[in-house]
Every structure is written in C-alpha cells, then in structure tokens.
C-alpha cells in the first residue's frame, strides 16, 4: 500500500495545486464585486475595443500580427477590400494607446 501511494503522481503535485486554488480563491473573492460593477455598464471604450477585435479576426483583411491595426486597415483599403470606415475613425487620434493601435494577439510573443 505504501509503495502504491508513493507512486501516485498526484501526491507530488498536491501541494502546488492546493496553493494555486487558494490563490485563486483569494483573488476571486475580492474581485467579484468589482467585476460585476464593471460588467454592468459597458464603457464606450469596451464597446469600441470589442469592435476592433472583431476587425482583427476578419480573415478577408489578411493576418493581423506584427502590424498595427491602422496599417492593416490601410492595406485592406489599398487593395480595394473596403474595410469599415468606423474602424479608421476609432483609431484616429489614439496612436498613443496600445489597446487601440495593436491587434488582440499583440500581448503574446511570436
């Protein structure tokens, strides 16, 4: 019996798992009311960003990684694919905000 117990993988990882769960619980507990507060009224920025993410995922305009959203929009416009004008309006004047300029995968390393 003892030998079998020692052989279980879960034995060696138990500690880690427990620690994670505890961490999660700790994090989730205080953040719950906050999230709710944020979720209820979607800010104008959230709606815009959602629309921009939709634009990122539209395959017709080509891959989105490695270039800025505006560059991708310009390319699509150059090749006559008629990207939505609203996207350009949204991106105008927001060059300093990385949430707006770069695509949804920009946080991930290549």
């Amino acid at each position: 019996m003892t030998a079998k117990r020692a052989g279980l993988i879960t034995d060696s990882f138990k500690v880690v798992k427990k620690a994670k769960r505890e961490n999660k619980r700790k994090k989730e507990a205080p953040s719950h009311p906050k999230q709710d507060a944020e979720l209820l009224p979607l800010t104008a920025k959230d709606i815009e960003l959602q629309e921009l993410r939709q634009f990122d995922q539209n395959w017709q305009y080509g891959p989105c990684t490695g270039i800025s959203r505006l560059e991708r929009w310009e390319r699509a416009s150059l090749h006559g694919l008629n990207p939505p004008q609203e996207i350009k309006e949204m991106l105008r004047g927001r060059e300093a905000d990385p949430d707006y300029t770069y695509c949804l995968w920009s946080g991930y390393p290549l």
Partner: protein
Amino acid sequence: MFSELSHSSRQGSCSLLCRPGSEDQDPSVFDRVQPAYSPCAERFRLGERSFNRQYAHIYATRLMQMSPLLTERAQQKWGADVPIKKLCDLQMGEQCCIVGTLFKHMDLQPSILKEISEEHNLLPQPPRTKYISQSDELILEDELQRIKLEGNIDVDKFVTGSVIAIYGAEKNDGKFTVEDFCTADLPPQAPRTPISSDRFVLLVSGLGLGGSHADSMLALQLLVDMVTGQLGDQGEQSGAATISRVLLAGNLLSQTTQDKDASTKAKYLTKKTQAGTVDAVRLLDELLMQLVASVPVDVMPGQYDPTNYTLPQQPLHRCMLPLSSSYPTLQLASNPHQASIDGVRFLGTSGQNVLDIQRYSGMDSHLDILENTLRLRHLAPTAPDTLGCYPFYLKDPFILEECPHVYFSGNAPSYQSKHITGADGQDVLLVAIPEFSSTQTACLVNLRTLECEPIRFSSFSAGDDEESEMNISH
C-alpha cells in the same frame, strides 16, 4: 557588332595605319549619345527595415493583389458566368474555378527543422542542383484552406508561391481534379517612343572580380576599352559612341571572395588578415572609374556582392567606391532594377530568382524560367519560401504592374535571348545575360529595334584551350 557602322568604316580603313593627324586637321571626336534616362525602382527601395513581421503578410497581400487580375483572366478564358469559389464553399463534384497560391510539397526541400531535430540525428543534407522528386505534390491555398491538386497540371513546371486560377472539380478523395488552369499573363505595356538612330545598352553580368579567372581580366579590360572608345579605328570608335548606357547585373565580385573562415576562425587569428572583398572592391572601383568617366553605368548588386542578402538588394554603398562615386554618371541601383532608357523600359534581376526556380522546378533554361515568371506576373514567386526576401506587408513589390520592354536576368551559364508577344500586343525581349567571368560574353541591346546580340572577347583563349587539349592527346 555595329554591323552597319563597321561597314561604313571600311572606306576609311586606313585610319589606324596613317600618320597621326596633324594639328590643322580636326581630330575626330565622337560624342556619346545621351539617352533620356529615368530610374523607376522606388518600389525596390526599403525605407524602415523592420523584421518583426512574419512572412504570412507577403502571401496574404500577394493573393489580395493578384486575385482580381486572375478573376478577370478566368472570366475571359472560361466565360463570364464561370463560378469562382472560395475553398470553404466548395461542393464535391461541382465544376468551378478557384484562385489561390500554389504550394509545392517537396520531400527533398531542405528544412532547418529536419536538420536540427535531434531525434532523427541526421546528417545535414548535401546541397543538390535540383530539389524536385517524383513524389512532389501541388497544393492550392486560398485565404483559409488548402486542397491537393491532381489532373491536368504539370507539377514540375510550377513553384511555391505562384498565384494561379484553376478550373475543375473536387473528387471523392478530397483532391481537386484540375481540367485547366490560367496565369495572370503579361501585364499591360506602355508603347515605346520611336527612336530614329541605333542606340545600344550594354548588359554585363558576373564580372567575378577577385576570382581566379585570369583570362577574364583581360577580356574585362578589352570590354572597358571597347566601351570607352580606346579600341579599334574610327569606325569602331563611332560604334562605341552609340552605346548609351552600361548595365552591370550583379555578381561584381567572385564567389571566392566570400571566405567562410572569418566567421569560424578565432578572432585573434584573423585580426591582421584582410577580407578578400577589400581588394576586389578596390579593383571594381578602378574599373568603374574608367567606365563612368565616359559612359553612364548602372550597377546592380548580386548574390556575392557586399550588400544585404535578401531581395530586394539595396544599392552598394557609395563609400566603397571612393574614386568612381564622385561621377554623376554612376548610378548605384537596387536588385531587382527597373529603369526607362529612351522610353524603353528595362526590368531585371541579377539572377537569384531564376536560379532558385531552376533548383525547385523541372525547368532548366533560364529563358524559359524568365518567360514563366513574366506569365505568372511575378518576379520572384519562390520568395520568401526558398529565396531570401524582406517581410513586406503593404504591397508585394515583385508583382509586375507594367510590362517591361526588356526583361533580363544575370549570371546565366550561357547567352540566350528571344522575343515573346502577349495577348494584347505586348512585345518583350527576354535576355539571359551570361556570366562574364566564365563566358567572356556581354550583350548589346539595340534600343531602336529591340534586338540583342552577344559580344565575345575571348576567341583566342578558347583556341588556347583547344591547343592544350591537343597536347594532352599527343
């Protein structure tokens, strides 16, 4: 060479044997013809160089640019009501047309992943002259999907990266049976402005300076003397004056100047040694100075020249050529190069694109490959797959938007040229410029008639070779 001109010189053939002209006699001076020249290679210039992007953008933008063209061609060929579909809408057994980028799956294609995979523990593959095999397969990719091709399409003739339209139907096994295909074919051509007199452009490639070809140095000096009007009698000289421009298409330096030792040897061992390119570039500078003092010269870099490796290669830096770069007649050009000389549009490369297609297809003749790239309307379809290329995202600069009148590539094993005509009356002269260091041959293109003829500088050395062979046989 200059056949009509040399004929007229027969009458004054004594000009070499007569006494030097006395002072009251006018010395004969031949003014070199001055053509209208405008370089139009802006699209091959790189501004910012960012290598953060992946190559997916090139393929995406290539398909974006080419698919309207191919849709139009397909409608011309198979009727205006031919169904043009995306692969995701494809129904089995339905006859339709699909526009997409070809990918050729090749077992022999060298892959860095195969080489470094420790599991297989393979030796690096030896370099081959051809990487094609019987098991090669063609796959067509559109924006979202890919499909294997079979049927009426010659696998050996196509290379990865070509955008074509195919017509046929999908079969039960998920493969697409091709009945017919079409390429984008020749782009529209601007008409040439008629020229009244014979004018020539000299195309030279593969000077191979710094190499071991000693006899090619003599031939090279003869070439320079011929162009600058220091050879022959007055007839020859007046002929040389009709050469309005010289175009050097790459590989100015020899491959032997690229010593790999410098990167593998210890630093302290190579501290006092000089790179092999230093002397070769100095030689090039002296040679160019002789030329540019007399005639405008376009210098394109090639595979072995000291500039960036990836296409488009940027012009050589003027600092390397202190003697010749002070002349306004020296034009340091990019590779590929495009220029309009007297209304004749020249476009060409130093040969990397052709050599790469030769390696990855069944075609051998440089001229056939040149014609094929023109019909595909793409200068270098195999870039970025097997040919180094800058990661463009906005536009693929290698797509031909305008049909050239002279389409050339350098560093061919032998001289070849021919005319091809397009469906809309385009007339293109294709020239495979031979490597000068091994063939001692240059090409003269007549701007008036668009004819091309080779000039050889080494009939005597070929004779020497025969003699030495005779000696061996005795």
